[in-house]
C-alpha cells in the first residue's frame, strides 16, 4: 500500500504542527515584517518578528495559508528561533536550507533546529522542498531587511 510511505514524510510531529501550529498569530510590537509567497502553489506566509535592542528574537509569529508541509515548517521554525540572536537565526536558516537538499552539517547544527530537523525527510520529495523552506526563507529575508519576492 503506497500511502504507508507517506508516513516517512508526514510524521506525527509534522501533522501535529500543521494541525495545531505554534505562534500562528500577529504581534503587538513588530521590528521586522515580511510577506512571502510561493508562486508555484500560491502559498503565502506573513512573518512578524520582534527584536530586542541587541538583536535577539524576543517574539515571532506567522499567518497565512498553505499545505501541511509549509504550515508545519513555519510552526517548527518559530519554535526553533524564539530567543535566538539574529546571527544564530540566520545560521539556522542556512543549516535548514542545506539540510533539505542533502548537504551535510554537524549534528550540533541540526539539533539546534529542534523539531524542524525532522523535515530532512523532505529530501525524498524534491517537489515539496520549496514548501518546507518558505518559512525559513521568509525569516532570512526579514532579518536581512530584504523585501518579499516570489522565491519561496
Amino acid at each position: 500500500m503506497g500511502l504507508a510511505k507517506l508516513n516517512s514524510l508526514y510524521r506525527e510531529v509534522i501533522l501535529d504542527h500543521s494541525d495545531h501550529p505554534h505562534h500562528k498569530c500577529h504581534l503587538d510590537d513588530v521590528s521586522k515584517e515580511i510577506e512571502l509567497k510561493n508562486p508555484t502553489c500560491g502559498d503565502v506566509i506573513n512573518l512578524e518578528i520582534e527584536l530586542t535592542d541587541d538583536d535577539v528574537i524576543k517574539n515571532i509569529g506567522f499567518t497565512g495559508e498553505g499545505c501541511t508541509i509549509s504550515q508545519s515548517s513555519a510552526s517548527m521554525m518559530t519554535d526553533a528561533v524564539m530567543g535566538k540572536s539574529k546571527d544564530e537565526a540566520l545560521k539556522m536558516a542556512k543549516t535548514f536550507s542545506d539540510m533539505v537538499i542533502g548537504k551535510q552539517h554537524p549534528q550540533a547544527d541540526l539539533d539546534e533546529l529542534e523539531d524542524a530537523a525532522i523535515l530532512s525527510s523532505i529530501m525524498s520529495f524534491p517537489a515539496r522542498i520549496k514548501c518546507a523552506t518558505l518559512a525559513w526563507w521568509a525569516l532570512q529575508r526579514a532579518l536581512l531587511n530584504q523585501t518579499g519576492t516570489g522565491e519561496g
Partner: protein
Amino acid sequence: MDTKINNHLADFPILNQEVNGERLVYLDNAATAQKPLAVTESLNHFYQTDNANVHRGVHTLAERATEAYEEARDKVQHFINAAEPAEVIFTKGTTDGLNLIASTYGEQNIIAGDEIVISITEHHSNLIPWQQLAIRKHATLKYIGLTEDGELDLVDAAKQITNHTKIVSVAHASNVMGTINPIAELAQLAHAHGAIMVADGAQAVPHVAVDVQALDVDFYAFSGHKMMGPTGIGALYGKRELLERIKPYQFGGEMIDFVHQQDSTWTQLPWKFEAGTQNIAGAIGLGAAVDYLTDIGMNQVAAHEQSIVDYLLPKLVADEDLEVYGPHDPAKHTGVIAFNLKGVHPHDVATALDMEGVAVRAGHHCAQPLMAYLNLVATARASFYLYNTQEDADALLAALAETKEFFNHGTGEVK
C-alpha cells in the same frame, strides 16, 4: 471501454512501470502527453537515416529531410483543415505561437484606446502576452466571465466585445474548467465588431476534431507535446491574408529573400516566420503523432475520453469531501477535472496520490487570475487521454479515498 483504444496501451512503454511501488497511473495529460512508439521511432528514423538541415541543401539527405519536414506541415494542415500548408507555421509551442501574434499582429495593429478581450479562464500563455501588449499600447484588456456553471458566459462576451475591440483571444478548451468554449460564436461576435479572433488550441487539438475554417478563427495556436508529439514543437495557424500583412517575428537564416548590408526582404509564407534552423525532427515527430491520432480517429479519441468522464465525474461530484470545479454535467466536461479534497491542501493530495502511483497536478495551473476569480489558491487536477482506462479512473478514486483516510481520519499514528 472500447477495445480498439485499449489495444493502443502497448504503444506507450512508459505506462508500463511502477512508481513508488505502484502501477503508474498517468493523469497529468493536460500538462503533457505520453508519446507512442510511432513518435519516438519517427525521431530515431529521422536521426539515423535522413538527418540534415532543410531547404538550402542540394545533397540527398538534405532533400529527404526537406521532404519529410514539409510533409509534416501538410499533415498538420489537413489535421486542422487549414486551407493550405502555407498557413501552418511551425513554432516551439502554444506559448511561442501566441507571443508571435501579440508581437506582430498585436504590435502593428493595437493603438491607445483599443480593447483586447480574453476570458478569465485563460492560461498565462494566452493572457500575459495580451496584458503586456495592452500595457505597452495603453489599450484595455477586458475579461469575459463565467456562468454559475463554470462555462464561458456568452452574454458577458457580447457585452465585453465592442466596436473598440481589435482582438479577441480565448482558449478553445480550458485547462482548468474542463470546458470547450464556443469559439465559432465568439469568432462571429468578434468579426461583427471588426476584431480578429485568436484561439488557444493547446487543450483542444489533442482531444477533439478541430476545423479552423469551420471555426472561422484568424489565428489558432497549439503545442505538439500535449498531442503526443515531441517537446519543442507546435504550430500556429493563420489566415493567409493576415499572415501576408504582418511583419516577421524573428530574423535570420531561411526567412529572407535578399539581404543587403542595410536592408533585407522577406521570403514567402510560411517560411517568412521560420527564422533559423527549426525543430526539424520535432516537426516530423509531430507529423507522426498526427498520423497516430488520425489513424484512431479524433471522434473515437473524444468518445473514449467522454466515456471516462461519464463514469468518473458523477462519482467525484457525489463525494461530499470533494469540491469539483467546472460543469458537473459530464456531457459538458472534458477529460480535464480540477478538484479539491476539503481540508487538505492540493499539494498534499498530489503527494499522497503519487505514493499510490497516481500522477496528478496541483497548483494554479498557470491560471492565477482564474484562481483569484474562483477565490481559490490552488487545486488538484486529473486529466485523461486516450490511453487512460476505466481502471485508471478507479485507481484515482481508490487513492483519493486513502488520502482522505490518511489526512482526515488518522494514519494509525496521528490525531
